[in-house]
Every structure is written in structure tokens, then in C-alpha cells.
């Protein structure tokens, strides 16, 4: 019953997000789209933090770089081609991650956390302090990417619903792909590295290579999120690369529960919903946000996805009989 119930739940969620643009207002449709994008972002980080055991505190760099690629590829009075700009943005984000990973993966633990932060800060200052991409004021993407293929346009991203569903498809693809990846040989190697890297080395795995691959893949997927974010809001600023952004996505992953991408999705949505509700409620909403975070750490180890097991530990034991 458990497996079918899960499938049922997943289908329910799917139905809900599919139906949302037809029931919710434009603003909330956009908000759910934002949630989906952040979910992609959080899932990409979860591949590093939850699956491979690499705590990156600079993941926003790849998100931001891809957004900038979109902005720079979009001509001033014309739309960029989706089928060109999306792959390029993702590729660039992945390559930047590959380059950064080449250096940072030589360090471990706390040092790894800090060096990833250092590289992200460098990327931040490159966009913040130079004229590339409009400096601290950011840069506009005045036109949403066009999906035209040789004159034929299958869908128009200027239509909010089309954009929404495009984002949804991306999110589902990333979710499915990452689930599959986790269960592949590659995925089990990553999990082995998370649990005991020295043992993996002793068994003949060149772990550095696998970590680097995971780092680049995570960077590229963060790039997918960054690209979509830039397209959705039409505005790119260096703040996309800031350490707050890196902190927020880490927050989503931990809040949701690590190592299984569904947790990252839940974390992203919980984060968006919390921001929305608290800010609507009071001027001092950050106080509530902070208090919730502190409370979550103290009383909710393991994140949202560990919640029901904690809540109904006893009934579950008897139910399993």
C-alpha cells in the first residue's frame, strides 16, 4: 500500500501544479514557477550536499553565471533563441563549475565550505565591479527567449502559461534525471564517496574524478535554474551570485531534508511560502523567518521530510506489524 500511496501522492502534486495556472492568479502562478526554479536549484545542490557529501557554500555562482549568459546573449531589442541560449548558459555554468571544482575539490570539510565561498565571491565581484553585465545595477532581459526553430514556434514563452509549463517540464526532467542518476553506478559511487571516501580510493575508485563530475553536473543544473530565473523575471543582478543566495539554497536543502531530491523540492517550496506569508503579515517578517529557522534546527533534525516519521513513530511501529 505504501508504494501505491506514494505514487498517488506524487500524481496528486503533479495534478496540482499542472492545474495551478488555470486556477491561481497570474502572480501566484509566477510564484509557483519561482518555487519550481528554486526547486531545480536546490536539487542541483542536493546532488552535492546530500548525495556526494560535498557542502558547497558557493552554489549561487553557477546559478548567477547562467543568468548572466542569458542576459548577455539577449540582444537589446530582440529575443534570444531558447535552443541556443539555454544550452550555452548551462554549458558555461557547467564549465565554470568544472574549473572551480578542479581547484576546490583538493580541500575538505570546513575548508571546502570556505573555498567554494571564496570562488563564488570572486565571481560575484567580477559581475559587481566590472562593466560586464551592467555592474551592481544589473542588466535587463527585455525579451523572453524565443522557442522558434527555423521559423516554426512551438510555444511562446511570452505567454505566462507557456513559460510556466516550460519551467515545470524542466523541473520534472531534472527531478527524474537526478533520481535516475542517483540509482546508477555513478550515483552509488557518489554515495560511497559521501560515506567513506578513503575506502572508495582503496577499492580503486579515482574519487576526485567522480567528485569533479558531480560538481560540474550540479553547476550545470544550477545553471538551468539561473537561466530560467533570469527569463522569468527579466532582470539579472550580481546579487544572484551573493553568499546570501548560496546560503538560501543551502537552507532549502537542509530544511527539506537531504539526499533525496524530493526533500529539496519541499524545502524550496517551504522557503518561498514562508517568505511570502511572513512578509505579508508583518514588517518585521525576518524575525519570524529567523525564529522558524532556529526552531527547525533545534526541533526538526533531518528536515521536513523526516517530520512524519518523528510525529508518528509509535503508530507506525504498530502499523508495520
Amino acid at each position: 500500500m505504501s508504494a501505491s500511496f506514494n505514487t498517488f501522492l506524487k500524481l496528486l502534486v503533479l495534478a496540482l501544479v499542472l492545474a495551478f495556472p488555470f486556477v491561481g492568479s497570474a502572480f501566484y502562478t509566477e510564484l509557483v514557477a519561482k518555487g519550481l526554479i528554486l526547486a531545480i536549484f536546490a536539487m542541483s545542490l542536493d546532488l552535492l550536499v546530500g548525495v556526494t557529501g560535498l557542502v558547497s557554500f558557493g552554489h549561487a555562482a553557477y546559478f548567477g553565471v547562467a543568468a548572466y549568459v542569458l542576459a548577455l546573449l539577449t540582444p537589446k531589442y530582440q529575443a534570444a533563441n531558447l535552443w541556443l541560449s539555454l544550452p550555452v548558459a548551462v554549458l558555461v555554468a557547467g564549465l565554470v563549475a568544472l574549473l572551480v571544482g578542479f581547484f576546490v575539490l583538493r580541500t575538505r570539510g570546513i575548508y571546502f565550505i570556505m573555498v567554494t565561498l571564496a570562488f563564488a565571491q570572486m565571481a560575484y565581484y567580477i559581475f559587481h565591479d566590472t562593466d560586464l553585465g551592467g555592474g551592481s545595477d544589473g542588466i535587463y532581459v527585455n525579451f523572453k527567449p524565443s522557442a522558434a526553430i527555423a521559423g516554426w514556434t512551438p510555444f511562446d514563452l511570452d505567454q505566462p502559461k507557456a513559460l510556466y509549463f516550460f519551467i515545470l517540464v524542466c523541473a520534472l526532467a531534472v527531478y527524474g534525471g537526478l533520481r535516475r542518476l542517483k540509482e546508477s553506478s555513478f550515483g552509488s559511487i557518489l554515495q560511497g564517496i559521501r560515506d567513506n571516501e578513503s575506502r572508495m580510493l582503496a577499492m580503486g575508485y579515482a574519487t576526485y574524478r567522480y567528485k569533479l563530475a558531480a560538481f560540474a553536473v550540479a553547476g550545470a543544473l544550477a545553471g538551468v535554474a539561473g537561466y530560467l530565473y533570469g527569463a522569468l523575471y527579466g532582470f539579472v543582478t550580481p546579487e544572484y551570485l551573493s553568499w546570501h543566495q548560496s546560503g538560501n539554497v543551502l537552507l532549502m536543502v537542509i530544511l527539506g531534508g537531504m539526499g533525496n531530491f524530493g526533500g529539496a523540492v519541499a524545502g524550496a517550496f517551504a522557503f518561498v511560502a514562508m517568505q511570502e506569508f511572513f512578509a505579508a503579515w508583518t514588517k518585521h517578517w525576518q524575525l519570524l523567518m529567523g525564529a522558524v529557522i532556529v526552531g527547525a534546527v533545534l526541533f526538526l533534525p533531518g528536515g521536513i521530510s523526516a517530520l512524519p516519521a518523528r510525529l508518528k513513530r509509535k503508530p507506525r511501529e504498530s502499523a508495520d506489524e
Partner: protein
Amino acid sequence: MNSYSPKITSPGSIWTRTATVATALACAALLPLGNAQAQSGKIKIGLMLPYTGTYAALGNAVTNGFKLYVEESGGKLGGRDIEYFVVDDESDPAKATENTNKLVKRDQVDVLVGTVHSGVAMGMAKVARENNTLFVVPNAGADELTGPLCAPNIFRTSFSNWQSAYAMGPVVYEKRARKVVTLTWKYAAGKQMTDAFAEAFEKAGGKVVKEMTLPFPNVEFQPFLTEIAALKPDAVFVFFAGGGAAKFVKDYGAAGLRASIPLYAPGFLTDGTLEAMGDAGQGLLTTLHYADGLTNAKDQAFRAGYAKAYKAAPDVYAVQGYDAAQLLATGLSAVKGDVSKRAELVKAMEAARIDSPRGAFTLSKAHNPVQDIYLRKAEGKENKVVSVVSKALADPARGCKM
């Protein structure tokens, strides 16, 4: 981290279930809000300003000024009641379009008012242009807002960066300075200010010998002070604001430079920071479109009213908020509160002559105030007016195609 590691062989049903439930709940929770805002007879005004972080004080002052005028008008503009929708923009450009969308798309406000941070204001302008929402800027000085980004629905009641710095050029020249060094944070506002100053100063015949910048929001000025001391210019022109401004002025004084090299700046250097500067700030000359000690009746009434309502002295930000409400009132009165008559409303606003506490001003073609710029001198906690250095100064509105 290992304590979290899920067991590779476990079916993982619990997390999946919860994650799904959580996602579903989050989605579902957002649904009912979709149509929550019913139509009312009130004019909906969206205030998007910083209420947390570095610029919170400025956001509060703008809000107070705006609400003060509305209160003075009996809580109505153009004969209709007002309903406020307030969003904290956190001075975070990354959230600018999204936060603006909250007001424009969720709350469907009739007028958008904001904000302090230029980057955020640019994001707001973009959304306002796309949705053709009436937008009034009560502070952000980015030249673009009434330059390349100008639009019939975008108005500003504050200043352009160009205005406040340009006026300082001739002043410095007249003080017999020929060689000047500029220093500012390396971001757009800083560059616009120092460029405008250089434009005016070099037109007058002086020369900017070095333009120095430091990364925003770094406040370690010592290396620059050492360099200034070595360069020995006739004067220094800077742009800083807030905490950084207070620290710079103190450091400048402590390095002994105040005695030998005069310091000039746009008024943001000394607005709201004089108390923090202490003695170091005394006597500083700055240019701005508002000053303490103005003699016009409007200002006196405004100050009295503000002090009564908020138990505090108003500042330039409060004035700008107040004028934003005045400008709106002019437009709304012309259409008797019917916001659907957009063309008439805009026309009335364009033609408005605002009786501001700063002195009356009109709007340029690009919707930026054409206003007097004062030279002010810091005395005590006030920036006392010295003279009007630029009468009815209009921003050149470069790049505006309106």
C-alpha cells in the same frame, strides 16, 4: 553529515511522502490568495520600500512623508479613499521584479511608489513599463529612471544623481580649486555622481586629476586618504551615504586632511549622518535639493506637521515622500479620482507645479523635478542653507525618447 545519509537500500517512502505532502500543501496554500483582493472603492497604492536592512530608516521616512500628506488631505486623494499595500523590498535587487509583481499582479495596485535603492527601482521600472502601471519614484536617483527608461507612466519626485552632483562643479571651482580628486564606491550611483561633477567642474575650467573607487560597501578608507595626502589636490569630491559616509568623514578628519584639503559632496553625505559624524562633520559643504533653514511657509508648515505626527524632525526623504503624494493628488484631482483616465491623469501630473517644502518645482519632459539646488553647510545636526547654487536645474535626461 553521515547521520543524515539515507540508507541506500531503504525504499525511502517516508521522505517521498512527506516531501510530496509538503509541496502539495505549499501549492495549495497559495491558491486561495489568488482572488482574495476584491474590488473596492479605494485607490490602491503600493508602497515598496526598504523596511529592513541598511536603508530601513530611509524607507520609513518616505512612508511617513507620503502618509502625512494623505492625512492632511483627509485620508483621500482625488476625492477617493486610499488603501495601502506595503512590501519590504529589503534593498535587494535580486528580488526587485518579484516584489514589484506582488504589488502589480497580486494586489493590482493603481499606483506604485518606491524606492530607495537604485537597482531595485530599476527593477520596479521594468515591471511598471511592462504592465503600464503608474509609478512614482520618491528617492532612487539613478539617471536611467528619467533617462533611457523614461516612460509616460514613470515619475520621480526626488532627484537624479546628475542633478545633485552637477551643481557642485561650479561651487568647487569658485572656491579656487583647480585640481580635484574624486572618490566613491564602485557602483552606478557613485559613477553617475562623480561623472556629473567632473562634467560641470571641467566645464568651469578645473581638472579632475584622479578618480578613485573602492568596492561597495567596503569602508576601509585609509589607503585612499594616504594617496590623497600624497597627491595634494586642491579639493576632494566624494559620494558616500549612510554608515559609510559617517565613517569616511570621521576618517578624513582624523587623518588631518580637513585642515588642508576641503571636502565637497552631494548632500547624501551629511543627511541623517551628522549626529554620527560628531565634530568631524561640522562645516561640511554639500549640494542638495533640500536644506534645513529654508524660509518658505510650506516648509515650516510641513515641519510642524511632521514633528507633530511622528515626534521626529523630517529629512529630505520625508519631503520626497510627501511630494510623491502631492504629485499624485494633483493628477488624481484632475480626473476626480478616476484612475482609468490615464492620459488625462498623466497630463495633469506633467503639468503640475508642486508646492514642495523644498521650494516649488515642476517636472521636466522626462518627469524628473526641475528644481533649485542648495548649497548647505553642516551646523550642529542640521544642513543649513547657504545659497541657491543652481536655479531650476533640469536633468539633461540623456537617452530619454519621450
